[in-house]
C-alpha cells in the first residue's frame, strides 16, 4: 500500500473492506445486538466502557454534584455563636446582575450607629440567575452558592427568601464544599471576630436559630435560642407577614430616596400601629406595612438632612 501512495492522496483505512450487498446491515445489526446484550450487564460508568446502560434513575438515584456546583446563594452563620458572617458591605448587592439582593444594615439600638451586621437580607430566588458573582465578590465569605436545586413551587412567594430562609450554618457549607471551605475558613473566621467586636446584644445573630431549620440543612446544635432580631421598634409578626412587610419597607425606602411616589402596595393610610389592638389580619398587615414605609422614609430624610 505504501508504495502506491502519492503525495496529496489520503488512503483511508476503515479497518475493514467496503461494505456492500447488505453486509453493512449485518454489521450494524451486530453492533446493535451487542449493545442490547451489554445493556443487561454492568452499568456504563468507566470511560473506557463503550456499552452498558448509563441511565441514572433520577429521584431514586443521584449523581454526586461536584464541589464547585452552584445553584442559589445562601448566607452562612457561625455554628457556635450564631453570628452571621455578613457585614452589610453591599458588595453583592452592587455586583448582582439581575439586582435581586436587597440589604439593610443593622444599627446599634442604643446609639443608632451602623454596625457591621445585617438588619435584613432579601434575595429573590425566582429572578436569580445563579451566576455566583455574589459569592465570588464577598470579602467575608458570608454568601456562598448552595447545591440544592429542587426548588419548584406552585407559587412565587416562597422564592422571595429573607434572612431566616437564607441562613445556613457554616458546618453545612463545609460539608458541601470541604476543599473550598478549608481554604477560606481561617480568613473568614478572623474577619468574623473583628465584626463581632463591633456588634452589641443580639445584633448580627442569626434569627434562623429561633426559626425551624431548613429541611436540607444539617441539624445545627442550637446553643442559644436567641429571639429573632427584629427591626427596632417592630413587634414579632408571623413569618409570612414579616417577609412581606420587609420587602414593602425596602421598596418604600427606595422610592422615598428617589423622591418618587411609593408603589401602591398598600391601600391603607399611613398611621402608627396601635400595639396589641386586635385588627383583622389584612388591615393589620397593611397598617404595619405603611408604618414601616413611613418610618423608613423618615429615617432616609433624617439621614439626608444630617
Amino acid at each position: 500500500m505504501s508504495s502506491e501512495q502519492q503525495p496529496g492522496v489520503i488512503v483511508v483505512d476503515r479497518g475493514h473492506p467496503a461494505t456492500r450487498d447488505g453486509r453493512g446491515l449485518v454489521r450494524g445489526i451486530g453492533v446493535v445486538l451487542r449493545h442490547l446484550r451489554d445493556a443487561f450487564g454492568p452499568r456504563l460508568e468507566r470511560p473506557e466502557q463503550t456499552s452498558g446502560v448509563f441511565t441514572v434513575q433520577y429521584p431514586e438515584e443521584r449523581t454526586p454534584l461536584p464541589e464547585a456546583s452552584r445553584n442559589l446563594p445562601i448566607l452562612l452563620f457561625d455554628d457556635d455563636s450564631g453570628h452571621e458572617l455578613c457585614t452589610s458591605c453591599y458588595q453583592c448587592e452592587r455586583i448582582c446582575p439581575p439586582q435581586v439582593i436587597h440589604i439593610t444594615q443593622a444599627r446599634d439600638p442604643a446609639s443608632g450607629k451602623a454596625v457591621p451586621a445585617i438588619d435584613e437580607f432579601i434575595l429573590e430566588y425566582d429572578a436569580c440567575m445563579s451566576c455566583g458573582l455574589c459569592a465570588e465578590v464577598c470579602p467575608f465569605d458570608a454568601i456562598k452558592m448552595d447545591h440544592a436545586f429542587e426548588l419548584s413551587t406552585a407559587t412565587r412567594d416562597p422564592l422571595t427568601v429573607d434572612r431566616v430562609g437564607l441562613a445556613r450554618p457554616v458546618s453545612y457549607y463545609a460539608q458541601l464544599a470541604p476543599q473550598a471551605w478549608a481554604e477560606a475558613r481561617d480568613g473568614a473566621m478572623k474577619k468574623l471576630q473583628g465584626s463581632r467586636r463591633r456588634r452589641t446584644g443580639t445584633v448580627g445573630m442569626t434569627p434562623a436559630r429561633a426559626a425551624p431549620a431548613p429541611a436540607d440543612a444539617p441539624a445545627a446544635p442550637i446553643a442559644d435560642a436567641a429571639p429573632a432580631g427584629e427591626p427596632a421598634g417592630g413587634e414579632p409578626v408571623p413569618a409570612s407577614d414579616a417577609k412581606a412587610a420587609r420587602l414593602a419597607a425596602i421598596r418604600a425606602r427606595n422610592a422615598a430616596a428617589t423622591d418618587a411616589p411609593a408603589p401602591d402596595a398598600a391601600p391603607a393610610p399611613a398611621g402608627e400601629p396601635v400595639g396589641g389592638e386586635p385588627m383583622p389580619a389584612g388591615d393589620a398587615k397593611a397598617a404595619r406595612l405603611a408604618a414601616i414605609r413611613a418610618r423608613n422614609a423618615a429615617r432616609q430624610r433624617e439621614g439626608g438632612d444630617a
Partner: protein
Amino acid sequence: MNRTIVISQILVIEQAPGWLVAALNHAIIAGVLLIGGAITMMLQVWVERRLIARMQDRLGPNRVGPEGILQSIADGIKMFTKEDIIPRAADRWVHLLAPIVALAPIAMMLAVLPWGRGLVAVDLEVGVLYIAAVSSISGVGLMMAGWGSRNTFALLGAMRSIAQLIAYEIPLIIALLGIVLLTGGMSLARMPELQAGIPLFGSSIPGAPDLGLGWFIFTPVGLLGGIIFFICALAEGERTPFDIPEADSEIVAGYMTEYSGMKFAVFYIAQYLLNFALAVLSAVVFLGGWQGPGVAWLADAGLGAAASLLSLLWLLLKAWGLFMLMVVIRAAVPRLRVDQLMSFAWKYLLPLALVNVASAALWVGLTEWSSIEWGNLLPVDGLAPWQRIGVAALVTAVINLGATRWVLRINRAPAAAPVVVPA
C-alpha cells in the same frame, strides 16, 4: 359453519332468525379482532421502546405499571385529553377523515389473516388479492392528510409516502405472486395448510413425520420472495430505514405534522397495526403461518382446540419475531435518501421479484407438470415427488442466486475516487 352453531348454542337463540345470528357472529369476531389489534398495538409500542432503549444504552419507559408495561395506556389518556387542533386553512372534512381512511383498510386486513388452525374470520378465495387491494387504500388516507392539512411539510410527506407506497407495492405483490403460483390459489387460509411436513420437501416424502416445518422460506423461491416481501413490508409500514414520509429531522412529521390528540393517535395506531398485519402476513405466506412442531400431532390426537391454541401461539411467535427484527433494523440502519429509496425499489427489488416469479413458474413445472405437458422434452414422470422437488430446488436456487449476484453487480456504484487534498 361450526362457529355459528357454537355461538347460537351459547346464546340459546336457536329460534332467532338466521340473519341475527350471523350478524352477532360477525360482530363478536370483529370485536375480538379489533380489541386484540388495539392491545397488540400497545404492546408493540412498549416492546419497541424498551428494546430500542436497551440498544441505545438507555432503560426506556419503566415507570407506569410493572416494567412500564402500562406506558401506552398513559400515553393514550394523554392523547385523549389533548386539544383537537384543525388549522384554519385546512380542508376541515378531508383533515378529519384522513386518519379514518388510513386506519380502516388496515383493520380490514385483519379479517382475512389465518390466526391459527381453523381460526380465520373470513376465508376469502382471493385473500391475497384482497390484501393487495385493501392495503393500498390507506395511501389515499395519507394523501388526504397531507393535502387537507394545507401545510408544506405535510404535503411533502404525503407525496413522499405515496411515491414510496406505489414503488414498493409492486415488488411486494410480485413477491406474493410467486407464492400464489406455488400454492395454486389466492386463499390465505389455505397457505399454512400447504406448508406442513418437513423443510423443503413438505409432505412429499411418504412416511416422513409432519413437523409443520414445510415453510416456503426453506425453498429458494420462498427465500428470495420472503426477503423481498419483508423489505417491501418495511417500506409499506414506513419503518426505518424507509421512514422517509415522516422523516422528523427533515419534514417535521410528514403528513402527520398538523395532527394532534386522538387524530394523531389514530395514525399511530394505523402504523403499528399495519406493521403487525404485515408481519403476520409475512409469517403466513413465507414462515408457515400457524404451522409448527406439535400442531399436527395434537390435531391427530383429537385435541383440536389444543392444536388451534398451539397454532395461534406459533403464529404470534413468528409475527412478534418479525416485528422485533423490524425494531432491530430500525436501531441499526439510518434513513435512506429519496433517490436511494427509489433506486432500491426499481433497480433491485423489482427485477429480482420478476426473476423470482419465473423461478416459481419453473418450480411448478418441474414438480407438477407431467412429461406430456412438457411436450415429452423432460422425462419427469419417472421421478418420485420428493426427487422432483429436489431437482426444482436446485434449478431455482441456481437461477435466484445468479440473478441476485447479477443485480447486485450491475447496480454497483463505481469505486469512489481517492480523496485528493489540494497541495
